[in-house]
């Protein structure tokens, strides 16, 4: 948005219900709009300068009736923009909307630039720039859990993770400062800064990563099927899709040769992913296959380990369970029609099924569904950074890398401190500025200072 927008002309925009729709809402904001518009309204009660809602005829510049509309009036400063504001709820036809817009242009109003209502809200002190940024983020959010995280963030001004990031950096700097200001007095504790630097870096990376996921979140939840070749993943994949399709009818047809497909589980849309595909023998390719499965797994919200009932659980399977045990998962013991064996694996829930005969498939589905519901109902504990915060965090990474390089090169503490200070300055944009007193406070609580 241009930042040099003039603020004298009334502005308008279609805020909801692009025609054709039942109702279209047009918002008009600006000084004098009540007196400007009132000659073109024919209400049962006269238009008054107070916050209310009333029904009125809307007339064209030549006083022909355009429509009968519900009108909401907000009197300055009690409106979104802080200016006098009207909202016209008219019938959502292209013609009516166009005619009303013509009327507004005739009255000297102009179409709002994107974000201009918010801009005026900021200028009029109705909203802080920070609130406006948040509002922007709200439009990125797709999943209920993320919405929850968003509101959590709005309520708590600082997240635990960013807060702890800040504490770690302050601690780091306090150690450099102790080495300088109290070199004689404090018997500085031995401290491996590279270790805590790595931890700080991984916190930053995780926060950014989490945000990236949300941003690209046209993405539904992902359910991955993994397992050894010939465990029957593909037949299970097809069986699950067919089953859900026969139950849920409003899913449009999809391509059959894709290894991903939409599936509806519980209240949410999920993506079912078959991680199979590589069936060639040969060590290198085998490894590659496992690596690809890992990638899919890492990104999944839930996964099913498919094992061949006859073969039992392979060491590789166990490894996967160990590695990705933190993501909700279950073991599917496929081909139960061919054997009576029921391999057990650790404490993981094991569900016997036959993709071929369809035996136990419904039970499996209901199991997955309840797992899916549990997932979408559990808000993630992760902190969801805002767009501006992520931009800052991204700037933080190269600074952290420089700090790590300086640390490894054995630079003296006053220079390491410069790097740490630059990093903290960047973080300041995310959180409250760090005052010298906090660093000193850290020093005095960690080291026995004073001769």
């Amino acid at each position: 948005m241009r930042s040099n927008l003039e603020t004298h002309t009334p502005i308008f925009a279609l805020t909801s219900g692009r025609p054709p729709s039942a109702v279209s809402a047009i918002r008009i904001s600006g000084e004098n709009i009540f007196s400007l518009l009132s000659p073109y309204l024919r209400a049962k009660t006269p238009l008054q300068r107070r916050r209310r809602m009333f029904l009125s005829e809307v007339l064209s510049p030549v006083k022909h009736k355009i429509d009968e509309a519900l009108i909401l009036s907000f009197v300055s400063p009690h409106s979104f923009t802080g200016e006098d504001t009207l909202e016209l709820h008219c019938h959502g036809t292209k013609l009516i909307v166009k005619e009303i817009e013509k009327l507004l242009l005739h009255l000297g109003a102009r179409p709002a630039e994107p974000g201009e209502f918010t801009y005026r809200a900021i200028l009029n002190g109705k909203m802080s720039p920070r609130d406006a940024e948040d509002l922007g983020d709200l439009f990125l959010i797709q999943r209920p859990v993320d919405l929850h995280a968003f509101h959590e963030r709005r309520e708590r001004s600082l997240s635990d993770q960013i807060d702890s990031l800040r504490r770690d950096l302050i601690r780091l700097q306090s150690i450099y400062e102790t080495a300088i200001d109290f070199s004689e007095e404090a018997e500085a504790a031995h401290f491996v800064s590279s270790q805590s630097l790595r931890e700080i870096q991984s916190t930053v990376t995780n926060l950014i990563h989490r945000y990236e996921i949300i941003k690209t979140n046209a993405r539904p939840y992902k359910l991955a099927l993994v397992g050894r070749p010939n465990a029957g993943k593909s037949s299970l994949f097809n069986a699950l899709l067919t089953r859900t399709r026969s139950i849920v009818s409003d899913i449009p047809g999809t391509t059959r040769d894709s290894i991903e497909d939409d599936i509806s589980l519980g209240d949410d849309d999920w993506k079912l992913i078959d991680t199979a595909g590589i069936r060639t023998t040969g060590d290198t390719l085998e490894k590659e296959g496992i690596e690809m499965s890992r990638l899919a797994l890492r990104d999944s919200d839930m996964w099913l380990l498919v094992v061949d009932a006859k073969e039992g659980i392979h060491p590789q399977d166990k490894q996967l369970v160990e590695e990705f045990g933190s993501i909700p998962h279950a073991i599917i013991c496929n081909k139960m029609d061919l054997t009576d064996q029921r391999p057990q694996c650790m404490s993981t829930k094991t569900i016997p099924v036959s993709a071929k005969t369809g035996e136990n498939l419904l039970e499996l589905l209901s199991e997955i569904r309840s797992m899916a519901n549990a997932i979408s109902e559990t808000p993630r504990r992760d902190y969801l950074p805002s767009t501006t915060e992520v931009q800052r965090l991204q700037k933080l990474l190269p600074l952290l890398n420089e700090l790590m390089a300086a640390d490894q090169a054995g630079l003296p503490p006053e220079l390491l401190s410069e790097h740490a200070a630059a990093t903290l300055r960047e973080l300041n944009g995310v959180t409250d500025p760090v005052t010298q007193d906090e660093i000193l406070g850290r020093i005095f609580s960690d080291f026995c200072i004073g001769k």
Partner: protein
Amino acid sequence: MLDSSLKIIIVGGGHAGCEAALAGARMGVPTTLISLSRDKIAEMSCNPSIGGVGKGQLVKEIDALGGEMGRNADYTGIQFKRLNTRKGSAVQSSRCQSDKVLYAKRMRETLSQTPNLSLLEGEVKGLLVEDGEMRGVVFQDPASLSPREILCGAVVITTGTFMRGLMHCGSSQRRGGRYGELDSLGLSEELERLGFRLLRLKTGTPARLLRESIDFSGLTVQKGDDPPQKFSFAETQISLPQIDCYLTSTGIETHTIIQNNLSKSPLYSGQIKGIGPRYCPSIEDKVVKFPDKARHLIFLEPESLSSSWIYPNGLSTSLPQDVQEQFLRTLPGLEEVKVARPGYAVEYDAIDPLQLTHSLEARHIRNLFLAGQINGTSGYEEAGAQGLLAGINAARSVMKAPHLKLGRHQAYLGVMVDDLVTLGVTEPYRMFTSRAEFRLSLREDNADLRLSEIGYEIGLLTKDDYKLFCERKKKIHTLQTYLKRTVVKPTDKGNATLVSLGSSPLAYPQTLAQILKRPELTLADTLALVDTPPTVSHQKSIQDVVEIEVKYEGYITIQREEMKRLENLDKVGLPPSLDYSKIAGLSNEIRQKLTERKPSSLADASKVPGITPAALTAILFHVKRKSPLATPSV
């Protein structure tokens, strides 16, 4: 008779008062120093040393401006030591042990020999203020019955710990600002009456020990630097014999005695209400807060060549005398120790420095200046530096010249004053290098380059000293130019030299300055790459400045950018009438703080504790809306 409005009065003869009085008189303004006791002028009330990390920088700055502390320290120092020598030169600092008797004596002599300066013994009972302007003081001569008024143009108050001073030793309390001296009672009430908010602070000092009763044989010797490096940029000399200090330590037994007697410490019994400094804790504090530490280091420092008193650095305490003796005797070397004077804590009144301007003038009373411990600081150097600034500005006030203000990017003194007057204090304020965000540029070695020009312009630095400065500056410039202009081509011989120094060979021609940037090379290494010996200064003090500037260049550039950003924020003025309750997006706490402080610019606002960049943006938006100006980035 001279118009009284052209005179200034300094109240208090501590380290701040001495600098203030000398500054005023040297700038040509008739100056009177009033002190409770003439014999106690320039007394070192606590440890017998000058300088230290961060403090050494202040002493050098005092010196570069034309003050006395550094010179006095050079002539009366008995052990000199550079600190942090294994770190970069930005954080290296000077410190010396002083002969405290000679230190005070030489300072008193300097005062009495300075033209325009007169000393007066007695107490200041009141301050004469008319229409918000200083007119003079009410002076009580000890020899006369009734007080009299002394009129003047400006007053500097530097009364240290003497305002409502209360000394604690065990459960016994005694009024007084320093051992064996009376407090000054009336001045606190007078300042309160004039609208100052008073703070209650606390400080402490250890027992003094008799040298003859200490067995030094098993203790670690702490030697000074050889040769010692002096403080002053002027032609001073270190002429006193140099002595050793000793190192001992407390042990479990010491800590047990202290733990068992905590209830007798006025600090822990609740008798002391004032807030002490966290960086200079009493031994009681150290034992309580760091129970895991088996020992604490204690430095034994001789107080004077002519006295047998030893200062045990690290043992500040307010425990009763018998307990002090008991725990002292558990330290190696002190088994038979005799205490010359017990340690004690002192509570005193300070004013809230938020009520001062950057020239150390009271915001609400023109020509009234305050400096030193009364402003909530601790330390001789902090006091001296403030005294100097307050003295300069008192003199400039009566000369009708604009006040001298130093920025955070110019001097530690600027950082300290800015911290005091914009943030206030919650504990006695001590200088640390970490308080100076531009410390890579604020070094001891370039204090003169930063400040001597100013010192000369305001008429404080003498012509001779200024001439010395100009010569030094020229040598530095010549060497810098030489390094920037001299190009070295890759040769077998030169590359062999580089490799032998652990560096990499030159691939293409580079200037000496570029080569010096390599962390592994020193200036001497770099100069050795040139065949014909350059006609530049070989003085270490010159080479050091030049070398460090080259080495730090990248970092200093970043700091300069940060300075510029601050200056931009400085340009966004905030009117005192600004209604912060009208600005959306500010927390109530921030609103309240801003309303109280009335920052004069966005830069000032950015220093208010707890303010966020988002809050600054909100203020900027608000102000911008009122007056559409160019927007600096926040």
